[in-house]
């Protein structure tokens, strides 16, 4: 666990160093979309911000030769991969936490119940974790440069699917939140497993 802690600590430092401007610009914009009722744009925006940060971390790891160096340290491939999956969840906590604070502030100002309109949060969480779970195995397998195509492809397919889901949900009964939640957990853990296997099987890191 301690090794993993070291890897996550490193990623947090990198995030603070390389993504601070990203955060400074992205967060206010995200909050504005969210508070002005443009939830669907806020959702896409949240997905872009999260995936952008994770891929930035991976890109710097690749460019600096960290991935190769890490192979000489007492770290397992699963730990290196796992650090990114845990970062994905930590980012959700931070970013959604900020959005929740903004929502509570807005509700307080308007004299409405604290968490009114918070129903979108599971969707924001699900969309970005789900999409990154689909993308990450390709990024670990192909590297950032070659994996970029997979990134765009999964992003477009996810947008199309979510659009279709919204249309279908008006006519057909879609699975309830519980089933979708279980599906998301399975997707996340399955993705972690596949990424670890694919990364282990890759020779030149």
């Amino acid at each position, binding site marked *: 666990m301690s090794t993993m802690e070291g890897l996550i600590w490193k990623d947090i430092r990198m995030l603070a160093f390389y993504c601070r401007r990203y955060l400074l610009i992205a967060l206010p914009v995200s909050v504005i979309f969210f508070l002005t009722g443009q939830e669907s744009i806020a959702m896409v925006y949240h997905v872009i911000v999260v995936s952008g940060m994770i891929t930035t971390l991976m890109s710097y790891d690749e460019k600096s*030769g960290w991935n190769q*160096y890490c192979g*000489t340290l*007492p*770290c397992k491939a699963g730990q290196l991969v796992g650090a990114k999956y845990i970062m994905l969840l930590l980012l959700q906590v931070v970013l959604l936490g900020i959005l929740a604070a903004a929502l509570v502030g807005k509700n307080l100002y308007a004299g409405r119940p604290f968490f009114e309109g918070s129903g979108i949060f599971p969707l924001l969480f699900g969309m970005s974790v789900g999409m990154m779970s689909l993308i990450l195995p390709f990024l670990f397998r192909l590297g950032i440069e070659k994996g970029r195509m997979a990134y765009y492809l999964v992003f477009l397919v996810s947008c199309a699917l979510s659009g279709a889901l919204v249309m279908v949900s008006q006519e057909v009964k879609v699975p309830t939140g519980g089933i979708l939640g279980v599906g998301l957990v399975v997707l996340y853990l399955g993705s972690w497993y596949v990424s670890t296997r694919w990364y282990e099987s890759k020779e030149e890191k």
Partner: protein
Amino acid sequence: MNTIEVRNLTKNRGDFTLDRLTFTLPGGCILGLIGENGAGKSTTIKLLLGLLRKDEGTIAILGRENGEKDTLLKEEIGVVMDEVGMPGCLTPAQTGKMMSKIYRSWEPERYKELIQKFALLWDKPFQEFSKGMKMKQGLAVALSHKSKLLILDEATSGLDPVARDELLDILREFVTDEEHGILISSHIVSDLEKLCDYIAFLHKGKLLLWEEKDRLLEEYGIFRGSRSQLEALDPEAVCHKRVTPYGTEALVLRDRLPRGTEVSPVSIEELFVQLVKEEKAE
């Protein structure tokens, strides 16, 4: 105990093959891996560290066979690669904090002492360091977790002469312990000549020779004389010859020459160049 034992190590990488390498590194010794660019030095090191998968052969490190993936074993190996690979934004202080979580046997005081010794700024990000400073940072980490084996891939190449000399002292001190060993690859042969107990010459993926350095220097010499004098020598004694406008020069095996033949000492660099040329001529 041997710190490294390699038997018939083979790896095919498309247009390059590392061909049945066999060598050992006894405890308390330094082995210099010498070879021109593309000879297979880095491939050998990556195979030892499990960064590449071998096709054939066995590798035993610190007595443990095929333990390249063994994370516990990696606690005992300090590595500095040509590209050091630290995250660019981390300062030495932050790197130390990260490594203290990664290595069980991390020695913070030793690390601090080395960072000071190498005159690295505690709060300067790694990406702002010069190549030599990056190497020093890598070395400070490699020497701060009670490692028994150091593997250095071109680690001296970015250092200025004073820093190189300091590094050589640190490495000599490291192998005063009989359980320790160092494998160092470089194309700056003069550094390895000063430092190493054993020398391995790699050329186009093949091990031309692996021998104790002092024995090599005793075994080989440079003969200088006229063409007729050279032709009078036992052809078996002449490894490689070169005709110049002023006479001939040949790499020779001293014990195959008639007594009294005048032979100059050969440097490891000359020996390597001559052996590679001989190989190319064949």
